[in-house]
């Protein structure tokens, strides 16, 4: 995985102590090879989905799939980035644009993808994707239809797109409404449309694959997800209440993120449960991730995959612990939809249309960050603003202002989570050092008084 790569300028090692993190890494590989073997043996359909496509439908219909962004991380970890950069260029495409989203597209240009080298090692990442027959994206950005359309064309797959709408209603307390009162969270017409989108997708998939979408199976899958995310909520709440915290983002990001791609499976529930139990055991035993914890930091942004050790560089010097990231907290607050049995499709619609709102649209994101900072007793926020992709912009000014107005210091910087060339560990460490010394410590002392 990308997170196991060491940043080129990293000086400290990443310590991962949770068994759940290791288990997730091991499982995803086993799962991929099992899925791949099945697709090749059965010769059936195989789908590539953008991350915001409701994968629950595919799970319920037993259609094998990978999520595009998950696969991009695998490609990165298998060091395909440079080769794919070249392949995009050779085929006339700008390799610097949406490069993370375009990894699977780049792979589709690779004539060696399924070959082995002279030593018998596979040349494609994990021997390459099975050949997709289905390519599906939501139109949450202008380039999505382009990338998934080209991918479909290159593989001879069928393309399907799901439209996206913009919220008129913007409740500031969405995280309180999401699980049980989601009808209040959205404009009714948005939700109605999303249900119709799901019905059309299901009918299309049924015709394409010859498989039926049994509503009982969808209900079962949805309930598994509720159970899984419920454990994330318990884990998040537990960590938030611990002083000192038993684990940091280095422990939780990977454990949660990898399992999120498996949501709707019994494995994912068991994994989330094991994560909670492991963290609880540490908390019960009074284990501190950072024994001299003094300052609690929040990380806003994508995971710093290229330099995970960055998160730990401030522990010894300042007792500053990065204890919050969106990965666990989104699981806790954004996914759960109770009372699925009343209308599984509407509950699913109420999950998938909100993700873009929650993460990328002020005031949904800014109000949540404040609530989370308060729940987690945060002393300071380090915020990596994505600067290479219009789809990822999220109102950084408003987020920073909202947090600062609430009395929480924010260090905002522009960065790229997957491009080591744009990351200077020393500069960033100095920046955070200064931030802690000049903003976080004084704010913390003021809070203590």
């Amino acid at each position: 995985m990308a997170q196991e790569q060491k940043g080129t300028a990293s000086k400290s090692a990443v310590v991962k102590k949770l068994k759940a993190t290791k288990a997730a890494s091991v499982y995803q590989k086993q799962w991929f090879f099992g899925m791949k073997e099945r697709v090749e043996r059965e010769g059936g359909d195989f789908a590539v989905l953008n991350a915001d496509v409701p994968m629950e439908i595919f799970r319920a219909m037993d259609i094998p799939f990978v999520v595009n962004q998950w696969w991009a991380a695998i490609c990165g970890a298998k060091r395909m980035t440079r080769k794919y950069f070249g392949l995009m260029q050779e085929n006339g495409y700008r390799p610097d644009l949406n490069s993370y989203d375009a990894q699977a597209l780049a792979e589709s240009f690779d004539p060696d993808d399924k070959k082995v080298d002279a030593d018998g090692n596979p040349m494609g990442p994990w021997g390459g994707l099975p050949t997709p027959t289905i390519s599906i994206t939501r139109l949450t950005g202008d380039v999505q239809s382009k990338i998934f359309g080209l991918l479909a064309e290159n593989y001879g797959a069928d393309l399907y797109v799901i439209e996206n709408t913009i919220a008129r209603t913007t409740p500031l307390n969405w995280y309180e409404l999401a699980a049980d009162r989601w009808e209040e969270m959205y404009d009714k017409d948005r939700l109605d449309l999303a249900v119709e989108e799901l019905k059309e997708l299901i009918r299309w998939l049924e015709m394409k694959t010859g498989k039926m979408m049994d509503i009982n199976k969808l209900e079962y899958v949805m309930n598994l997800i509720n159970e899984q995310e419920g454990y994330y909520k318990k884990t998040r709440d537990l960590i938030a209440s611990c002083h000192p915290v038993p684990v940091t983002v280095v422990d939780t990001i990977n454990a949660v993120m990898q399992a999120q791609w498996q949501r709707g499976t019994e494995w994912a529930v068991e994994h989330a449960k094991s994560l909670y139990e492991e963290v609880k055991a540490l908390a019960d035993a009074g284990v501190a991730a950072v024994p001299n914890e003094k300052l609690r930091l929040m990380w806003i942004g994508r995971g710093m995959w290229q330099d995970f050790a960055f998160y730990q560089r401030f522990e010894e010097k300042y007792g500053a612990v990065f204890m919050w990231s969106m990965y666990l907290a989104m699981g806790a607050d954004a996914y759960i939809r109770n009372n699925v049995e009343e209308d599984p499709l509407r509950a699913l619609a109420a999950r998938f249309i909100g993700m873009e709102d929650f993460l990328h649209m002020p005031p949904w994101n800014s109000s949540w960050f404040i609530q989370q900072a308060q729940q987690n007793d945060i002393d300071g926020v380090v915020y990596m603003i994505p600067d290479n992709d219009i789809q990822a912009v999220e109102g950084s000014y408003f987020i920073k202002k909202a947090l600062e107005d609430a009395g929480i210091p924010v260090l905002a910087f522009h960065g790229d989570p997957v491009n080591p060339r744009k990351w200077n560990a020393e500069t960033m460490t100095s920046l955070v050092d200064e931030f802690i010394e000049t903003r976080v410590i004084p704010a913390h002392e003021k809070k203590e008084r």
Partner: protein
Amino acid sequence: MSIRSCAMESKAFLALKDAYDHREKGAAAARAAGVKVVGELGFDVPEELVLAAGMFPVRIYADPGKSLEETDKYLEYSFEPVVRAQFEKIIDGTYGSQLDYLAISNSTDVIIRIFLYLRELKRVEPEKPVPPITFIDWLFTRHRLHQMRDEFVIDLFKKQLEEWAGREITDEQIREAGAVLNENRRALRQMAQLRHGQEVRISGSEAMVIIGAGFFMDKKEHTALVKQVTEDAKSWPVLEGPRVFYTGANHEDLALYEKIEAAGLVIVGEDTDWGDRSYDRDYNPELPVIRGVVDRYLFREFSAKKAFVSQRVEALDREVNAAGAEGVIFYTNQYDEVATWDMPKQRKSLESRGIKHITFGRMQWPVSRNEGLDEKLAAFAQEMKGGAQ
């Protein structure tokens, strides 16, 4: 070449150029007469409804000379430069004093983000002089479900206009507005016939003025002037030089076209929203009024931002053929790069038909900031003429 003396001798053209050069005049006159002015950000604000509400639509445009100090506080790097400059005028009070309302259509990602930011700005910093805003959340994929949704969305826009206007907008008023706009579009298509084919009598720059003036003036007045200038242009000298089609970034001024024309190329069409695409397809008066509006904006020629690559390849082939172009100029600004995903297959298709092309990517805005552009255009013109590449 650009704007020739023959054009400057046409009274109609001079009137159009005056409106194009002095873009605030029309709106100011409308306001002085008690007419509400609606700014349009995005290229899919249905003017049929704005006119039917008795309001005066004007297009939001950037000022390349303005400092972006305020904007830089709010927008991340990945907002394209032209939109940044438009945003500045919205938040610094320029448009606050010129407009009564601002209608934003989701014509591209960056505009959607601008809407979200403005909405939030009004919530957290209500003292900013931003006019009242509405957002039109079109769906552009051509499916039944989305067509029906669009009718709902456009009906919401109509209701918002009614609230602003303080009165109901009747079906008859929408049909009348549709007729006014259809006549305007037909006049522009007549004008465009003098740009297309073997005998080109209107240059790209002249056409930009003729088309662009319409974004800032009364539609009926614009139609009359377009008709007159079309008559006048029938006697203008035929332009000599390789005929090229332009695709890519929108241009709100003549800077790029003047450079292309200075290289000896003749621009016979473009797929931009400040050019040919703006008057493509009529409002259909035979449909129920809202459906007729949806029909016009959903089914006109594809935009680079909201279409599949395959659709864009076919669109460019169609447009190049219709314009009689011998070459194509691809041009994208830095951070406005969605169209680059279409280009490899578009180029391949053009090459299969022997049509030459040149690509300019990662370009700076304003155009004057690009070094070496003139030389590259000159070399392309030379190539088009059959000389060395």
